[in-house]
């Protein structure tokens, strides 16, 4: 294999053909234009938008973020511009700049998810990621990802109203990951993405020892990587559809670990805050690595990494 031939690092997720397997996670990359100062955003496989709801949401009160050791707790509460504003203002920017994207959608009821799915269908949105796992909103999201019956109903109803690629994002806050993954597949998901942030809490005891300040929210960052790897390893053998893995990826080695346990593509999340150019760097590093190791395609590399199976 000659070093001059560009390795094929494309990957298919449902009908979505990604030019490379490196995506940026919902809520960590805005609507892409914010990262224009740090890279050519169109180099990335795809960006996953901030979670979009039917109507705009103002989110939770402060405090919303707290850094913990090797991690970050957030309680944003899905503040977003709403689907119509996304279509009017954000979508044209993504299209004009050839940025591949996946629209992350969230709802407070099955009807709301269906309504957004219909809007996506009529606006030719190619790929949707169902957010069933946001731990920070009082109704909806995580509740839908908790039991099989509700999950099946939601995914299958959205499927009926949306023909394009449908990704279901799962939470790790469940007792039987493989059951949830199988249910999503049965309901018609084209792919699974996992994991979302993990329910967590931070306590700061007041200096005078009288009481404490607290924040509850979703934990992300490198401290959740072992949980994420295990989750993906557990669901891989139970489903045939692709998995987009995420949870604490902050370097090239981390990405390979996710491929090894069963991910077909990855999302970079909190590490975008630390290294805003990381996803772009990983694309370059993956290309170089494949050339050095004489891999012609990503599939070959992934096959070798999963040698144990």
């Amino acid at each position, binding site marked *: 294999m000659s070093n001059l031939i560009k390795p094929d690092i494309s990957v298919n997720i449902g009908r979505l053909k990604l030019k490379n397997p490196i995506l940026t996670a919902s*809520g*960590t*990359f*805005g609507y*892409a*234009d*914010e*990262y*224009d*100062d*740090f*890279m*050519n*955003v*169109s180099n990335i496989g795809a960006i996953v938008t*901030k979670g979009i709801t039917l109507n705009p949401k*103002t*989110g939770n009160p*402060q*405090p*919303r*973020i*707290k*850094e913990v050791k*090797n*991690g*970050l707790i*957030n309680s*944003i509460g899905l*503040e977003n511009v709403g689907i119509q504003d996304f279509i009017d203002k954000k979508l*044209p*920017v993504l299209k*004009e*700049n050839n940025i591949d994207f996946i629209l992350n959608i969230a709802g407070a009821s099955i009807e709301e998810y269906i309504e957004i799915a219909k809007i996506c269908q009529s606006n030719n949105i190619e790929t949707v990621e169902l957010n069933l796992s946001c731990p920070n909103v009082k109704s909806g999201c995580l509740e839908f990802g908790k039991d099989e019956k509700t999950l099946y109903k939601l995914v299958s109803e959205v499927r009926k109203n949306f023909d394009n690629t449908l990704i279901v994002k799962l939470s790790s806050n469940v007792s039987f990951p493989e059951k949830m993954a199988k249910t999503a597949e049965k309901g018609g998901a084209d792919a699974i993405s996992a994991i979302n942030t993990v329910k967590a809490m931070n306590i700061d005891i007041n200096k005078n020892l009288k009481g404490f300040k607290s924040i509850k929210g979703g934990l992300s*960052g*490198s401290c959740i990587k072992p949980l994420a790897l295990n989750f993906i390893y557990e669901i891989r053998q139970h489903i045939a559809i692709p998995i987009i893995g995420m949870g604490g990826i902050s370097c090239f080695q981390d990405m390979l670990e996710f491929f090894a346990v069963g991910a077909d593509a990855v999302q970079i999340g*909190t590490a*975008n*805050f*630390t*290294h*805003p*150019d990381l996803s*772009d760097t990983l694309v370059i590093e993956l290309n170089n690595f494949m050339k050095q190791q004489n891999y012609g395609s990503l599939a070959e590399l992934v096959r070798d990494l999963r040698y144990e199976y």
Partner: protein
Amino acid sequence: MQLKTQNKIKGPHIVEVLSNIKLSDDTWKLTFQNQEIAENAKPGQFVSILCEDLLLRRPFSVANTINNSFEIIYKVKGKGTKYLSSLRNGESADIIGPMGNGFTIENKNSLLIGCGVGIAPINFLSNILEKSGIKHSFVACSQTFINTGITENQVIITEDGSAGLEGRLDQHLKKIINEVKPEKIYTCGPNPAMAYVSLTAEKYEISVEAALERDFACGTGVCMGCVIQIKDNNKTINKRICKDGPVFRGNEVLWQCPI
């Protein structure tokens, strides 16, 4: 909107430390060499510094630019600032910026009020106004004296009386306003101080620009972690301090703090 697709104009830049000096017991000034940041930074803008072992970058207002270098002023409080205080000449740091929107510079008699490390962007603004020949006075308030280089038009207020006037800002502000008769006020410091400045200025019908701060996760406008409530006609809307600010008009901020 056509994006620029110019890679890495805001970094990350690996920048060299030129000096790191103590201004008071716990307050330091770091000078970094970087032409792009020095040329582009405006008073009120900030840089985000990657601090050893910490997940999130820490934001610092640009405190001055000189030729190809820029300065920050910081108070040693936590792990991030402790790391900064360990940096020595010739070592390097990973920095992105300049980020956010700076102060609007107008040719008006201006009163500049910096409290604590909030002196940093005010110091930078004072230098720019000086170069532009815009009349201004600079009030520097702190618990104990922070020596940023005293200029003629500077009023120092220290709580411990270690320099200048003794006491707090609220004991002296009205008198200063009456003497200076400013048409515009710029401020940076703890929220209660900025809220006090804004409410006082409102009584005198003087417009205020305030540079705010809060813990940031991204510092680039994507995470929505740093939002504050801004008055917008009869309702309030969320704005991101890092991206929409950090400079806001004093009378548009819903100051949710005791003064």
